């Protein structure tokens, strides 16, 4: 790392309408360093970098590259200045191979017929102008259009050969990727690799990565960091936009902290610590501990017995898994992503086909009234004969001598109560029935939409997704969703112009708050939250942790699927570790160490590693 800045930003400001995304930012990027840009959601990290990459144009301020003032008005200008950016959402053509995506957009060398003609003529003029020379000249002139055509189609037609020509770049930095693979066959991390190779191929010296680790597994992050270090050794400057403190500490040489669009400070990583950075980032002292209470009277809420779930390809994603979920505690699910977390949750929620096994739900109905919600009168009568119900005084109901009408009245007056918790087998229930029993799944996918939210619909309409079926009216009741939307906007501090705004216009973090808020508001009995803090900043994440803890105190059985082991250890009561679709261990989160969980996560991974190579 040398001390000459390759990029120098001076007084950069940018606003979108009323919102000031960046205000008077000064920043220097040194040659051969890894610089982290740290900040919360919406602190202007991405906007700032987009201005260097030519996506936006600054309102005010100047950009200097190697001391020379430049105008970067488009990504093309950025490439001309050897700047390349890898965006959060990859821009790749799905049906192309990795190699073709890399060379896509590359311009063929120009071939001008007029220029070639002039060259040929000069040659002819310089010659002795014999008949033979003229013939050569004439033939060459006639051939020129054909040569041009030939150059145009002289594209390397063998995709394998195209890939081979790119292999040196991949090898140089130690990328493990098959360049002939189609993008749609690739995992997120492979796609990211293709993006990186793409910018390297263009001869980039300054590489900007926008939250590169957000969608990667711990293993993949390690590989990525190794590659980044390799590039640094090669003299390239690397900028990483992130809000994960531990990664900042691990990879970067210096950290630039942004807060609300302003540049707070740039510090050397070796001279700071996580706590100091977090304070700079948030602006106020932050307690990094999650308030975890001991579970009160945990009782089995959901029994999963020998469950096997197939994924969409018909392979066993969950293989003979058994465990219990208790009410009033948070069960964490740890595991490298793609080890069956999604299938397990979707299996429980009825969204995936279950090959075998049972899921038994203990509906906490003891001393609660029976309703006609799921049961017909006949069923209730039959259950009464078997002695399921008691009256408010504790006497057993058998409904002997009562007419149907009277029984209906008693049920509606909530005078028929359960003796014990109701036990329901979920295996053959539809997703809707499972949902209505109070088993809610909020899965935050990588793109945050399309799994539980509809981007083009307003916040209110998205709230109605869960509740619109309620009531006998043929019309959708919009009043309750509106109240709920306003409540969530207020309590979770969702930043939105109004409750009528389409969800797709909100920023990622706010979309998540809407989704998680809705699931929690439905007063679930089992709440499965998968990646609820994916991509959220510290403040918003803690908001979500607190919400989960509140649910736990309300005796809800909470399942939390997360990537960050520190959070899993700090938030959960028990942690179930999944590996290769099997449970490799269920541990007490208060006693276990991070290393032990990490070990469990890779216990059966011998097979998967072979597949990776």
């Amino acid at each position, binding site marked *: 790392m040398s001390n000459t800045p390759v990029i120098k930003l001076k007084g950069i400001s940018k606003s979108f309408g009323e919102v000031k995304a960046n205000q008077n930012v000064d920043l220097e990027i040194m040659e051969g360093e890894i610089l982290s840009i740290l900040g919360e959601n919406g602190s202007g990290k991405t906007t700032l970098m987009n201005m260097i990459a030519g996506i936006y144009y600054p309102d005010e301020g*100047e950009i200097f590259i190697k001391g020379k003032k430049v105008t970067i008005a488009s990504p*093309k200008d950025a490439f001309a200045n050897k700047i390349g950016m890898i965006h959060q959402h990859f821009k790749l053509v799905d049906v192309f191979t990795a190699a073709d995506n890399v060379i896509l957009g590359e311009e063929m060398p120009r071939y001008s017929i007029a220029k070639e003609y002039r060259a040929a003529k000069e040659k002819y003029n310089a010659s002795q102008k014999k008949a033979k020379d003229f013939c050569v000249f004439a033939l060459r002139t006639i051939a020129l259009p054909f040569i041009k055509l030939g150059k145009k189609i002289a594209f390397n037609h063998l995709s394998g050969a195209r890939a081979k020509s790119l292999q040196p770049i991949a090898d140089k930095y130690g990328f493990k990727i098959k360049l002939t693979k189609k993008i749609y066959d690739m995992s997120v991390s492979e796609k990211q690799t293709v993006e990186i190779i793409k910018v390297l191929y263009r001869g980039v010296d300054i590489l900007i990565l926008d939250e590169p680790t957000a969608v990667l597994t711990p293993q993949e992050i390690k590989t990525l960091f190794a590659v980044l270090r390799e590039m640094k050794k090669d003299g390239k400057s690397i900028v990483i936009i992130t809000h994960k403190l531990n990664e900042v500490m691990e990879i970067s040489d210096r950290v630039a902290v942004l807060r609300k669009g302003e540049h707070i400070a740039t510090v050397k990583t070796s001279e700071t610590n996580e706590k100091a950075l977090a304070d700079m980032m948030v602006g106020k002292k932050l307690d990094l501990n999650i308030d975890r209470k001991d579970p009160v009277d945990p009782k089995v809420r959901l029994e999963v017995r020998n469950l096997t779930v197939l994924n969409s390809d018909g392979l066993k994603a969950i293989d003979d898994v058994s465990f219990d979920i208790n009410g009033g505690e948070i069960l964490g699910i740890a595991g490298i992503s793609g080890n069956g977390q999604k299938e397990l949750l979707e299996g429980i929620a009825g969204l995936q086909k279950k090959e075998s096994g049972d899921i038994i739900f203990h509906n906490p109905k003891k001393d609660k009234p029976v309703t006609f919600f799921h049961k017909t009168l006949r069923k209730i009568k039959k259950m009464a004969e078997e002695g399921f119900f008691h009256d408010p005084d504790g006497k057993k109901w058998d409904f002997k001598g009562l007419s149907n009408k009277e029984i209906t009245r008693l049920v509606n007056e909530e005078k028929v109560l359960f003796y014990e918790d109701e036990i329901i087998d979920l295996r053959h229930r539809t997703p809707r029935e499972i949902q209505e029993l109070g088993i809610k799944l909020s899965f935050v996918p990588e793109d945050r*939409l399309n799994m539980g939210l509809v981007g083009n619909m307003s916040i209110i309409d998205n709230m109605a997704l869960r509740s619109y*079926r309620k009531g006998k009216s043929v019309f959708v009741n919009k009043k309750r969703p509106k109240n709920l939307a306003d409540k969530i906007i207020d309590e979770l501090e969702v930043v939105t112009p109004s409750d009528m705004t389409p969800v797709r216009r909100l920023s990622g973090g706010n979309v998540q708050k809407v989704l998680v808020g809705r699931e929690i508001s439905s007063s679930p009995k089992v709440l499965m939250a998968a990646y609820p803090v994916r991509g959220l900043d510290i403040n918003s994440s803690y908001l979500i942790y607190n919400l989960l803890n509140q649910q736990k105190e309300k005796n809800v059985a909470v399942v939390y699927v997360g990537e960050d082991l520190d959070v899993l250890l700090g938030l959960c009561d028990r942690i179930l570790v999944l590996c290769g679709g099997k449970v490799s261990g269920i541990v007490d989160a208060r006693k276990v160490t991070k290393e032990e969980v990490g070990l469990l996560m890779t216990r059966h991974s011998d097979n998967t590693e072979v597949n990776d190579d």
Partner: protein
Amino acid sequence: MTNESKSGRERLLHITKREFSQKWKAYAVRAVAFLLAILICGIVSTILTKKSMGRFFYDLFDGAFGTERRLWDLFHNTALLLLVALAVTPAFKMKFWNIGAEGQVLMGALACSACIQYFGKTLSDGALIPVMLLASMAGGVIWAVIPALFKAKWNTNETLFTLMMNYIATCFTAYCIAVWAPLGSGTLTFKLGHLPEVGNQFLLKILVAVALMVFLFVYLRYSKHGYEINVVGESERTAKYVGINVKKVIIRTMILCGILCGIAGFLLVSGTHHALHKTDTVAGRGFTAILVSWLAKFNPLTMGLTAFLVVFIQKGTGQFSTLSGLGASYPDVMTGIFFIMIISCEFFINYKVVFKKRSKKTEAKIEPPAPEAAPSAEEENVERIETLDQTETGGEE
């Protein structure tokens, strides 16, 4: 150096995404497009016939509104077109691209005709008409639900499927006509099963269309079914996640489409033509209706207006063509111009074209001794920022 690279690729035209803050502006653009469409129609017509522009406009309005009968006919035709447009709308809202309305209406008409053919002599009109109505609905539903079943079961492409079903319907109708009237001219006329008249021969159909328009508006906007259609259309994954039975919604919605198409077919045979022909009965309304529905952005109430405008152009220019001897295809040409104008105006609603002034003068003004001074003029910067902001909002789409 930077100056060179910039002026090297400076473009005069710049297209950027935009979004109108006020809705009326978007409507104003559409209104201008409509007026331009009529103007172009007028220019084309005067070139073709060497008649004056005034003559064209006189005939245009005279043909549409000139007499009481023409006025009724205008609204009557609007109603028929609107009916078919309404029929395709729920499916479109669900992003199920049903372009088989032509065939679905024709099957409704055929089923209706079959009832007259087989029960006409045994049943009185009072009993026959309900039977015809039900049969029409059944005919439309069968034709609509077959592609829906295939889509739900095997995820076949509904666009091709429904399109092909049109041709089967046409040929099947031709076959039936040939069987029922082996010596006929290809058109089957009926003396029975005529829809009773309310007020005059047009009013009942107009009322039916308006009633169905309001019904569909409420159904799509406020009902639970409409909500489900919207969710399935926007994101099938989310629909599955919240427990909506997507297959059921697809089939249910196509049944509704079939019923509406059946009603349209019934009204065409029993109320309008009293005849059946393989192509003239529906007369391309199944395809025009798709455009009508799209132009109205699938809003049933707006659809009333778009259907009216299309029929207005057809009828008005029809009059002009009759008087000028331009032939039967002339109104189609004019309708085509109308559609092109209205559809292309959407471009100007969604995008903004920014013209850039050549900045030669400003470049010359920059003093060479100030290398760190801003290379570009202030005003140009402002313009660029404007366009970039627009791109920003566009990028979120």
